[in-house]
Structure formats: structure tokens, C-alpha cells
């Protein structure tokens, strides 16, 4: 990079500050998980893999991981199906038709995608408790309620990922080409758009899955008394054995990191394929 292309110094400082803010706690967590004790000096003592081994073998942890994986998969699947059904037709309609109705539909979906950011997970959890557990939905299985409540919070991930993928594909031009060739829109979507969207759909699904698995507030408030999921478990372990909790958090982080790396690889491959020559 030439001198003219170098980012400003303050940008480098800001980036370094952010990295420190993220990496220092992670490093501390890793050291805590790898040490036998860290209470006598400012440095950790007695390096060990014991806590990692115990975390992996603990039936309570294994159960929580299984339940978390299953419920996160169910939430991500529901979010993907509903999100794709809402976003794909709306984005294509908005690209195809400059009519205000299509633009209004797109704006409405964009607004809905912002809602989960505007409403705190605690509020969502308490509302769900009031509505589905306390009042009319007592007969509903709690895991089902949990999936139904978490899935809408994942919609922004699905919506934004698919929306940008469709814009990059120039989906409207492909649909119009299909129409002039005598194909129904459904045929062009099935034969052309969906295969091309597959990496984006997978990336959106994986991101949604990871996000659902890392969810704490709703899992704790809604399922805390009945089903123990990974995040509440890590929180409760922290009070019993901080070293094992730290080891579990590091393992969870490594798992999430692997999924995110997979998503990044998929996205890179997908954008590389679609670059015009």
C-alpha cells in the first residue's frame, strides 16, 4: 500500500481500541480456562486442560448443547422459511416494478427488519411469558413458544442477506429474460434464482443458527425453569466453577467462530462466481 492509500492514523487507533476491547476479554477467558487457579497473583497459575475436558464430558453441558443446537436449528429454519418467503418475492417485485406499492412493501419489510433491534430481548421474553404462558397459551409446549419467539428476532439477518444477494444477482433482469423465453416466474426462480441464492440462503441460515444459539435473555426467562440451554448454563456455571465456565465459553466461541468462518468462505465463493469478467 502506498503512502497515499494508507488509512488515517486516527482510524488505525480506533480499530486498535476496538480490537483490544474484544480480544483482551477473550484472551483473559482463555487463560482463565487454561489455568488451575488465578487468585493469588495478577498472572494465572497451574496451566491445565482439565476444565476443557470436564466441560466436554459433563452430561449437563452435553444436554444443554444438544437442546440449544436443536432449538436454534428450529428457530433458524422457521426464520429462514418465513424470511425467504417474505423477502424474495418482495425484493423481486420492487426490482421489477417501479410502482409505489412494490416500494411500500419493500419499505415495510425493511422496517420490520429493524424492529428486533428496537425491542430488547427481555421485553420480548416477558411479553411472550405474559401472552403464551400466563394468559392464553398455557397449553402450548414451551420449546415451541421459544422457537416462535426467537425466530422473528432472526428475521433481519435473513432479510438483509437475501436482499443484498438478490440485488447483486440483478434478479429482475433474469426474471424478465425468463418471461420473454416463455417461462413462468416460478420456473425461473426454481431453475435460476434459487440455485444462485443457495449460498446466500445457507449463509443466512448459519448466521441465524449461531445467533439463536447465543441468545441468552429469552432462553433464561422463558425456559429457565424447564429446559437448560447453553447460555444460561454458562451463566450458572460461572457461580459454581469459573474456570470450567470459561473453558465452556471458549469452546462455544470456537464453535461460533468455525461457523462464521464457513459463512465467510461461502460468501466469498458466491461473490467471486458472480463477478462480471
Amino acid at each position, binding site marked *: 500500500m502506498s503512502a497515499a492509500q494508507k488509512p488515517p492514523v486516527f482510524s488505525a487507533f480506533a480499530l486498535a481500541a476496538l480490537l483490544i476491547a474484544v480480544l483482551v476479554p477473550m484472551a483473559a477467558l482463555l487463560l482463565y480456562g487454561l489455568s488451575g487457579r488465578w487468585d493469588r497473583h495478577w498472572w494465572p497459575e497451574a496451566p491445565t486442560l482439565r476444565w476443557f475436558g470436564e466441560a466436554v464430558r459433563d452430561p449437563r453441558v452435553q444436554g444443554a448443547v444438544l437442546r440449544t443446537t436443536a432449538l436454534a436449528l428450529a428457530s433458524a429454519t422457521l426464520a429462514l422459511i418465513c424470511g425467504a418467503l417474505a423477502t424474495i418475492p418482495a425484493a423481486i417485485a420492487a426490482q421489477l416494478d417501479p410502482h409505489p406499492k412494490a416500494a411500500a412493501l419493500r419499505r415495510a419489510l425493511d422496517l420490520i427488519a429493524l424492529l428486533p433491534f428496537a425491542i430488547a430481548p427481555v421485553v420480548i421474553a416477558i411479553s411472550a411469558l405474559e401472552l403464551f404462558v400466563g394468559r392464553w397459551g398455557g397449553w402450548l409446549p414451551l420449546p415451541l413458544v421459544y422457537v416462535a419467539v426467537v425466530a422473528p428476532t432472526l428475521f433481519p439477518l435473513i432479510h438483509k442477506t437475501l436482499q443484498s444477494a438478490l440485488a447483486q*444477482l440483478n434478479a429482475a433482469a433474469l426474471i*424478465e*429474460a425468463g418471461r*420473454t*423465453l416463455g417461462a413462468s416466474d416460478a420456473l425461473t426462480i426454481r*431453475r435460476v434464482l434459487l440455485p444462485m441464492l443457495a449460498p446466500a440462503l445457507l449463509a443466512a441460515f448459519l448466521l441465524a443458527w449461531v445467533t439463536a444459539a447465543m441468545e441468552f435473555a429469552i432462553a433464561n426467562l422463558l425456559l429457565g425453569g424447564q429446559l437448560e440451554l447453553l447460555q444460561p448454563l454458562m451463566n450458572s456455571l460461572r457461580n459454581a466453577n469459573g474456570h470450567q465456565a470459561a473453558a465452556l465459553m471458549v469452546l462455544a466461541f470456537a464453535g461460533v467462530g468455525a461457523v462464521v468462518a464457513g459463512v465467510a468462505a461461502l460468501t466469498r465463493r458466491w461473490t467471486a*462466481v458472480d463477478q462480471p469478467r
Partner: protein
Amino acid sequence: MSSIASPTLDGGAAATADAPHLAVRDARLALGGRPVLRGIDLTLARGEVVALLGASGCGKTTLLRSIAGLQQLDEGSIAMGGRFVQSLPPQRRDIGMVFQHYALFPNLSVRENIRFGPLARGEDAAQADARADELLALIDLQAMADRLPQALSGGQRQRVALARALATRPMLLLMDEPFSALDEHFRLPLRRQFRQLQRELGQSCVIVTHDREEAFEVADRVAVMFDGVIAQCASPRELRRAPVNRRVADFLGMFNRLDARTLEGTWRRESGHWIAPVEALMLAGDSPDTHGAPALRFPATLRANYPGQQRVACEFEGPNGQTLTLWRRHEDAELAAGSTVELTIAEPAMRWIED
């Protein structure tokens, strides 16, 4: 090709053989409150190529999209082969379309792109394969049949887009700036190949372009459009001979124009302009002996020389400051900028047009 049931021009059940392949009548359309098409009339005979020529925003692409069914008209009618199609979706119009950026399906091979239309229209796989083989041979891309579009050059993609549009044997081929995305050195041979292919197939075609030379080369008739209106639709020869008004003449860019009010003697008029093909403007000394035939003569001052690939364009300031272009050969003696010379145009080349 499946038959399409819709009202006919003569009210009968079947299209008449001698009906124009395309008849657009009084087509009107406004987008966002702005009139884009303002009473367009256009006909196209079997095997004919009509070019819609105009500047950006004149409505030529919108007209093409309306013919394709990708854009609904507010008013007016479109008939193809004698059948009104303006209310039919694109799938039920007998058309093929080549898009400006081709819109090839990126995940399908060249062969699959070509097979897509026949299969979508209900042909069986064997027929679609045979048609794809036939078209691959026609565009000379058999060796690329299994490649994806992104592995092809711009020119090859253009040929695949053409083959894909022809795969359903459409009554009418619509092309939206099909050569504009190509480098110039590819453009000329490709459009000549297209014209040869079109003549061999007898394919009726409407082509949108902003390139005057392209329009004149590939089309039997050229429709010059301004502001949603066809100002003149005529053969290239007729357009060259008799542009209908000053705006068409200026847009075509192949004429020198002199304001008739600023000339002297028999050339003077109360209104209008004299136009003459650029090649008719000569230095008085270079003018061939016309045995005393009348010619317009006037002094002009050379502003600048612009050496081009084929010739040198000399830009003059004529009577009343009007800009005139004189073409000279590269081997001719160079005129000095600022020098004043006498120019002449032979009377037969002159044509008066209204303002």
C-alpha cells in the same frame, strides 16, 4: 410454437398471412407522471429490421419493452401477425429478446441457456437439444456449449444471447442495444454477422440503438425518436436524402446546415434551413467542373482540423457563425487554422427544410 388466441385486427379468428408482423398504434405511456410514449405508430413487415434510434430518454427502450410485454401501455394497441397482444403477458407473445447486458442465466451452461426457452414452452428435451445444437452451429460456439456464461468473452455472450432469443423461433426478435456493451473492434464484425444471419433466417426484428451508424447498417428502416414520438421512420437512403425536419437532420449528424435567412441571393428564404450531406461541402478550388451549374458559395474561417481514422474533419465557421464540417483526405495539404477560404455546395445536394 403454441398458438395464441386473442382478438385479430380484422376481427377474424385467425391472423391473416399478409398482416404486418408488428403493428403498434397510438401507443401512449406515462411513467411517474412523465409522458414517455406519446402516440407511437410503427409497423414492421415480415423479415424486416426496424431500428429505433434516439438519444437516452427518448422512449425507445420503453417502446421495445412495451412490445415485449414487459411494460404495459396506458393507451393504444400492439398487434403481432394480426393478433392484438397488448393485454397478453410476455410469455404469450411470440417474441425473443436480446437484452442490453444479455441477462444470460449465470448458473446454466451455454447449451442450457439456449434450451431454456424451448423447454419452458413445452418442447421435449430431444427437440430442445436438437434446436440448441442447430443454434450452436449457427453461432459457431459448439466448443463452448458446456461452459458457463462468465467463462465467455463479451462477443461470445452476445452470440449466446442471440441464440437463446432465437431458440423458440419467435415471430419477432427484439434487441435492446445489443452491441453497446462490446468493444468497438468487436462491434462492427458482430453486427455484420447478425445482419447476415437475420437475412438468412428472414427474421423480423426491432432493434434499439443510439448508434447512428449501427442503425443505418443493420436496419431496413430507421425510426428516429425524440421525446416519446417517432419523428421520422424511413429507409437509411431516404433519411439521408430527405430528413423530415431540422431536428432529425441535426441528430443524424451527416449534414451541414445553413440558416436560409442568413444567405444572400436566390438562396435566401424567410424561414427554414438549407441542408446538404457533409461530403457535398468542398473548397471552391477543389470543386469539380459543373459547367456553370449553380452552386452556393460563401466564405468560411477554419476553426480546427480533426484528423480521424478515415479522413480529416475540418471545422469551419460559416455565414452568421454557423458551424460547418468539411471532410478532406489525409494526403491533402493541411489548411491553417484561422485561414478564410471559399466553400461551395453544388445545388443538387442542397435541400430546404423547415425549422
